[in-house]
């Protein structure tokens, strides 16, 4: 009896999703009368006022604000409301929250070592924000905050500055030994040091562009394939392609958040233990 209830409960979201898909399909079909091939892959990234029309000021509430707020709400729902029970045997939400906690905690501990654990809340903050933004951005008609270079660059610069300052505070000028690879032959060391310095300053660039570029590319590709769906002959192919790219994007959304977090940990390790 209980098992039956469980099954019907787990089926309900699937029915809702299928219903939404059907409605969207009919809506799109009605709207597509006389439509021609038009590509607007970048329109989804536009930052607009959330209420009304007009210019975007610094404190205006925009769609970016809305989707960032949604990700805050999602994080609070998962990590605060989900763990409200403090159950010894966790519910589904609590077990996801614990899984996320354990995953990031173990990563920080493994990569940066025991003394990196006190920076765990910062890395958890970055990871949760990125993973929620990425996944919310996968919803149709949504806005992906992490696809904007402004957003990822601020995070990457914050990580870069924090790590650099931390490195100098913890090690003084000894932090510069991160550029001086003592295991290399003496002749090569100046050249390697030059390369290391360049790669050190490229870090925030690659760190931010990797995330923004991945998100932007995936969503733009979905949009490009979606535009092809306007032609009846290739629309089935286009829908299959969208499904495949979407699945890839689900994977990429998680992996990019993970990569951002783990690279933060690697940089942090350099700051805490600069000696190779």
């Amino acid at each position, binding site marked *: 009896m209980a098992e039956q209830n469980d099954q019907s409960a787990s089926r309900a979201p699937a029915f809702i999703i299928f219903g939404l898909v059907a409605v969207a399909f009919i809506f799109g079909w009605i709207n597509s009368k006389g439509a021609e091939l038009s590509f607007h892959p*970048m329109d989804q990234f536009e930052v607009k006022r959330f209420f009304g029309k007009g210019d975007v000021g610094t404190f205006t509430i925009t769609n970016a604000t809305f989707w960032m707020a949604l990700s805050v709400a999602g994080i609070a729902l998962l990590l605060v409301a989900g763990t409200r029970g403090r159950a010894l045997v966790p519910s589904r939400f609590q077990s996801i929250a614990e899984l996320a906690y354990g995953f990031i905690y173990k*990563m920080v501990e*493994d*990569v940066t070592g025991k003394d990196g654990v006190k920076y765990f809340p910062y890395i958890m903050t970055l990871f949760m924000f990125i993973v929620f933004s990425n996944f919310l951005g996968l919803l149709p008609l949504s806005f992906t905050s992490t696809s904007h270079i402004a957003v990822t660059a601020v995070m990457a610069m914050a990580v870069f500055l924090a790590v650099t300052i931390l490195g100098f505070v913890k090690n003084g000028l000894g932090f510069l030994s991160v550029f001086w690879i003592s295991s290399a032959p003496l002749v090569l060391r100046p050249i390697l040091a030059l390369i290391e310095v360049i790669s050190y300053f490229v870090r925030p660039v*690659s760190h931010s*562009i*990797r995330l923004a*570029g*991945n998100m*932007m*590319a995936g969503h733009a590709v979905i949009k490009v394939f979606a535009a092809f769906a306007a032609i009846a002959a290739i629309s089935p192919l286009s829908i299959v392609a969208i499904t495949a790219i979407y699945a890839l994007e689900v994977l990429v959304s998680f*992996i990019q958040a*993970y*990569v951002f977090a*783990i*690279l933060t940990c*690697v940089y942090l390790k350099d700051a805490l233990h600069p000696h190779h």
Partner: protein
Amino acid sequence: MEGDVVQMGAYIGAGLACTGMGGAAVGVGHVVGNFLSGALRNPSAAGGQTATMFIGIAFSEALGIFSFLVALLLMFAV
């Protein structure tokens, strides 16, 4: 008409820039393939190195993303 030539050049450049992504694809495939061949030889050591593999993927993928970015800049910003 002069503007069209510039635009044509930009579009050709964007297309050329996209070939860089193939290199990133080869790189990522190389990383994962080598990881797998190592992991199958010594499965007990594989678990601890998954993070390293992801870092390697991230580095080689970043270069493909750069070429994609160049393409986008040529398409929209130049």
